[in-house]
């Protein structure tokens, strides 16, 4: 059993990883099209979803999604649902990995073949995703806490940089009153989406109570604004459209004299590499656990252990295979896939919420009669 603080870590890692998962870029693409407004709108939407989901999950203490669905619905409904929902997390992890491999190829290891880089990622992720749920949370905590001072350093370094143009930021703010598009709202709400990891991680929370929701909302708002406005401040309202990874370009325009490393990009890369690995590990851990739930027989515990192992290895092979195949996609297609995922994600989340709510209502009605 773990303490409540781990919920905030789950939220924080997703908020921070949104930089890799194409959120700033998608918002920048729609910067004249209501991106500012969508950021503001996404805050109440995200907060409401977060509160609803945590409230619902706390009605099922120490149960994950597989237990909730398998225990209260018939196998014909619950199993396909579990497989369906597991794909959301799988794709989330996949996009994080592929985007980061692309960044690695571009900025760090341009002379190493991309499949070797992917194999390195897969090695660590597949090894770690089979660990116990608590262990993953401990690892998440360690890596987040170690990197947080660095993040603060980048932010201060960026904001107090003489080349940071506040005029560009002010100009961007003038587009505040444009009517936002659904897709940019969907992308902004991604910052909140860490709460959805409770679908599995709820198993290890003893008695989840989320206090200080305002703090989460505030963090999300600040994260979104910084993620969106900082690159604009550095590259200008027009110039920013030419960059594929606006945040890495921004980090690369920072220089430090304090270390034996001169370009802040490398420190930033180090931080985000750990984040994307941890984020991919959490996502795929959830996928794995959901699939285990889907393929587990309801009776017979000795059998269960064996099927778990089979599912483990089958998942490792399938996940790795898909990742290696997807490596052939070019940057443009990858970006499109990422965008579609971000759009579908919001609907998927609401569907998941509705499913759990229906199960809860069914349970309650069963009890009252």
């Amino acid at each position, binding site marked *: 059993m773990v303490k409540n603080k781990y919920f905030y870590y789950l939220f924080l890692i997703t908020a921070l990883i949104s930089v890799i998962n194409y959120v700033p870029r998608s918002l920048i693409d729609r910067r004249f099209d209501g991106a500012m407004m969508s950021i503001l709108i996404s805050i109440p939407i995200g907060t409401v979803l977060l509160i609803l989901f945590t409230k619902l999950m706390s009605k099922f203490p120490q149960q994950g999604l597989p237990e909730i669905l398998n225990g209260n619905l018939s196998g014909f409904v619950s199993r396909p649902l579990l497989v369906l929902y597991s794909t959301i997390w799988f794709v989330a992890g996949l996009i994080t990995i592929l985007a980061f491999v692309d960044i*690695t190829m571009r900025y*760090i*290891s341009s*002379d*190493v073949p991309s499949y*070797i*880089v992917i194999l*390195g*990622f897969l*090695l*660590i992720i597949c*090894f*770690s995703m089979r*660990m*116990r749920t*608590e*262990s*993953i949370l*401990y*690892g998440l*905590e*360690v*890596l987040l*806490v*170690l990197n947080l001072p660095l993040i603060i350093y980048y932010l201060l370094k960026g904001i107090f940089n003489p080349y940071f143009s506040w005029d560009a930021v002010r100009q961007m703010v003038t587009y505040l009153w444009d009517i936002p598009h659904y897709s940019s709202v969907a992308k902004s709400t991604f910052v909140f989406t860490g709460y959805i990891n409770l679908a599995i991680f709820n198993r290890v929370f003893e008695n989840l109570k989320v206090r200080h929701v305002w703090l989460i909302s505030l963090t999300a708002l600040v994260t979104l604004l910084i993620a969106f406005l900082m690159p604009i401040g550095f590259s200008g309202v027009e110039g920013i459209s030419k960059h594929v990874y606006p945040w890495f370009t921004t980090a690369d325009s920072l220089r430090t004299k304090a270390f*034996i*490393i*001169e*370009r802040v990009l*490398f420190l930033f890369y*180090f931080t985000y*590499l*750990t984040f994307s*690995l*941890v984020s991919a*590990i959490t996502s795929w851990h959830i996928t794995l656990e959901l699939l285990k739930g889907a393929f587990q027989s309801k009776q017979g515990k000795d059998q269960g252990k064996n099927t778990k192992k089979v599912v483990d290895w089958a998942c490792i092979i399938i996940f790795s295979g898909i990742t290696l195949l997807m490596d052939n996609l070019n940057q443009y297609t990858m970006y499109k896939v990422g965008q579609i995922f971000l759009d579908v994600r919001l609907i998927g989340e609401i569907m998941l919420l509705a499913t759990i709510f229906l199960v809860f209502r069914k349970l309650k009605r069963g009890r009252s009669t």
Partner: protein
Amino acid sequence: MRIRQSGDSLLQQLSQQLSGNADLAQKELGRGADGVHMLYLKSMSDSSIVSRYVITPFYEMKDILAYESYIENYPGTTVGKDEKTLLENVLKGFICLEFENGHIYLFEANKNESSPVSDGQTEVIVQGPSDAFTENLQVNINLIRHRYQSEHLKAELTVVGAKSRTRVAIMYDDVRVDKAILEELRVRLEGIKVDLIQGAGELDKHLSDTKHRLFPTVVVTERPDRAVFNLSEGKILLVVDTTGYVVILPSIFNDYLTAMDDKLQLPISGWFLKTIRYFGLIISTILPAIYVAFTSFNPEVWKVQIALLVAGSRASVPYPSYLEVFIMLVLMEFLTEASLRLPKSIGPTATTVGGLILGTAATEAGLVSNIMIIIVSAVAISNFVIPLNMMMYSIRVMKYFFIIFAAVFGLLGIVLGLVGVVMYLCSLRSFGKPYFKIFALDQWANRVQGGKENGQK
């Protein structure tokens, strides 16, 4: 107590079983109805005890009944019930005494050959107590009880090992200990099926859940003060006879980087020392890997001056950087092993030849770069900063994984390795307790408890 049956006496059976031992001693004291048969192993029993407390009183007492009651009431004497207990105890060094009326007694006269309480060898500290555990269980328990005079301190005795019959004392503070862990430990100790237990570290191997681990999950210490400190934190001690070490469990990663000095110094100096140790840990694991990654893959990461400096010093080196690192590190490992195993009189020669002459000559010949020599020495020194021996060895092994990762993936590989190690450490459990957490406040409850007992608010 058992009445002798007709035919073979129990003592005769015993002497038959032990026949062929040169150190078997059989004596007859007195004659006829007043006689006593004696049987013991000379090597295991203390001859001065035998003569002073067994033989002399026999001739001084006025009759056999007085002598029997003297033997019966002597502290440590037990009554021999059956052949098995007789045999076991004679092998331990007890004296078997059989009276003519058929009563058999086991008189405790065992001789313990062990080194006296001496200064610690493997965990040296500057200030503070310097005595270390010995090979004798009783002495060790004495050392612990002496420092922890509480009615809550319990010591249970079990035996591990089919042939060595090593006595293991489980010691714990009854109030602070986690009962679930204690129960788990008892079950696991029962489950150990081996012939010999010769070292405390060996017990760790048999007690843990997974065989192939990179990191130790129980602390093995020779310092009584460390043992007692952990006792007060609610941990369990396994005092293993004949080994001179004590096992502390469950333990967390931080325990391995704690020296007892930290508690004795002023708080700020203590924290500083601990920080230094963590730095040493990081340097000795990833410094060689960083050298490989940055020279062979990502020289652009460094400032230009440094990149040029390294490239300049590597100009004459005819092979890739990872080979250079491997060669020098392996040589360094040889040096460490050699100076460890060599007799004390030759040891310094090995260090001089290896460290000074080889290092300088290798650089001058252009086989390795100057900077490489600096890195190797830095790694060697920082490795010795880790206070506990078992963790030191783990770290020594671990740096090679990092070099392999760096040689394959470059800078990326180091970060991959770091994340992998952190995740691996997090997946480890020491008796069901998480092994690696950044805010390890699990002992907080015990500290509060300790504060309450001492009347703090």
